[in-house]
């Protein structure tokens, strides 16, 4: 006999790891109705939140699911932004091609950063090496002046998609929403497959994972490369949104924001990273009317969330979703 509470907890976990198909596609569908309600500035903030959804979802794969303390996320973000920015600024390359280039460069950086992990470097040591990688990349941005224009940064020309100029923030929104939806769906598919289980198995017990036939080295490279791909795409969209790529956008402070998104949202949970991205992009804007108290309030909010919702914002959601749960609790 399983009592009701136990059963409920079990369902809770099941849906937690298997985002329910129907509801997933509902979210972007509803978001499509958003632009008429927004002005150009609020639309810009929403677009920025979409960029950070990719940043959080990608970072989560490595620190949440693969369980590696790798802090090169701001580097993946910056490299993606620079790859796209350079192609658009210097070569006037097509927009989609430039975005794909950002994703690929991010993904290669991810694969590169997985190498120390493959050599058995873990936890604090991996953290330091990856932080160093991030700072090294900042040095590259400043000094590869021929491409990056150094510390003054790159200006990204007004983006155009097949000759159609994305002149307003609303235009960018539809492009961003499409790309973010596809990448989040792909990441969800990956994480609930045998591969995603492999990532988590490596996190929980690497030797046992290998003994169960999971190719641990290959999966580590894959997790980092996918993380870099998603975050690099985030960087590409950032370059298109802000239209300015400069080294001071990819500092340690930026990395702390990425980390905050994942932790405040809920480690290991895709929905968590989405909520975290939205919360941490919106909060400064909502608090803008309280100059001087902004940082203080955000810091207090983060502390309160982690005190009362240790599993992150996403656990708030878990309390509401039982309504939908019944239909999806079997794979």
């Amino acid at each position, binding site marked *: 006999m399983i009592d009701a509470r136990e059963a409920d907890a079990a369902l809770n976990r099941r849906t937690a790891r298997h985002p329910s198909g129907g509801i997933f596609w509902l979210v972007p569908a509803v978001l499509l109705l958003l632009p008429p309600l927004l002005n150009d500035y609020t639309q810009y903030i929403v677009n920025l939140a979409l960029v950070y959804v990719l940043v959080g979802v990608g970072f989560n794969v490595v620190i949440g699911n693969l369980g590696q303390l790798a802090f090169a996320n701001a580097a993946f973000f910056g490299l993606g932004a620079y790859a796209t920015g350079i192609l658009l600024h210097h070569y006037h390359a097509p927009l989609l091609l430039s975005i794909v280039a950002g994703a690929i460069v991010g993904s290669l950086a991810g694969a590169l950063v997985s190498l120390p992990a493959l050599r058995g470097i873990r936890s604090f040591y991996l953290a330091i090496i990856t932080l160093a990688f991030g700072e090294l990349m900042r040095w590259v941005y400043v000094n590869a002046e021929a491409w990056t224009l150094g510390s003054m940064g790159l200006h990204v020309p007004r983006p155009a998609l097949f000759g159609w100029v994305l002149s307003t923030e609303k235009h960018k929104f539809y492009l961003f929403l499409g790309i973010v939806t596809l990448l989040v769906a792909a990441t969800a598919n990956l994480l609930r497959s*045998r591969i995603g*289980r492999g990532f*988590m198995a490596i996190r*929980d017990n690497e030797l046992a994972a*290998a*003994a169960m036939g999971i190719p641990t080295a290959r999966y580590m490279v894959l997790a980092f490369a996918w993380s870099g791909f998603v975050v690099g795409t985030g960087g590409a969209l950032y370059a298109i949104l802000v239209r300015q790529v400069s080294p001071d956008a990819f500092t340690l402070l930026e990395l702390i924001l990425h980390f905050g998104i994942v932790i405040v949202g809920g480690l290991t949970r895709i929905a968590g990273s989405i909520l975290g991205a939205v919360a941490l992009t919106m909060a400064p804007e909502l608090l803008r009317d309280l100059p001087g108290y902004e940082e203080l309030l955000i810091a207090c909010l983060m502390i309160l969330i982690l005190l009362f919702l240790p599993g992150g914002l996403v656990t708030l959601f878990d309390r509401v979703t039982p309504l939908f749960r019944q239909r999806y609790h079997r*794979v």
Partner: protein
Amino acid sequence: MFDTLNRPGSRLLSLTDVSVAFGGLAALSDVSLTVAAGEVVAVIGPNGAGKTTLFNAVTGLVPLARGRIDLGDQRIDGLYPHEISEKGVRRTFQNGGLFGHLTVIENVLAGLHSRIAANQLSIILGLPSARRAEREAVARARELLAMLGIERLADELASNISGGQQRMVEIVRAIATNPPLLLLDEPAVGLAPPVRQELGAIIRRLTKSQGLAVLLIEHAIELVMDVSDRIVVLNYGQKIADAAPAEVRSDKAVLEAYLGHA
């Protein structure tokens, strides 16, 4: 997939003069042993005798200093652990090898990893073929849990169930691919006597019905006597006996090394 290795009585696993060293310390010295298909061989010996090192050598977790290990007619030493697992050598761990943040059924699914035929692209795109492969694996995992009567634990987190239940789940996960050889590292530790008997019954059932061969490290001597066809005794990394249970029980060297002086 493993049919050629499953023929009863044929030689399944053989270690030939296997040595393993940690720094200058010899953990195993020139150990040779064989396991036939369907046979239960216990490995006993005092703490530090090299039993777990032997398992780690067979499953590719530690490199050999000398010697060779063959499975059927294939040499397996020097392969990656996941490759050895693929070839049909599966194991449990002394201190519990479950993935604690995964549910019980996800642990079994992780054990079925290589049997879920879906490539990376079809997974990322969420193609029907990938979903079908996943559904089939879930059904197979439920079947396996039901076989040992623990299907009701399917959706529990592995770290939340009792120690005894964790051992059962670890065994289910290890045999999920129908391997010809299972290595059990002290499966009875912390189990109450009735559960130990149940474990013995399960080991016998698996060897009888599926032709599984078992290499068993165990201190619970009544379980060892109960299930083993043969007992190998290690002491200070060397094999000092290899015989039927009754003979080992009266072997002088074994009594001295393992049970102390009479």
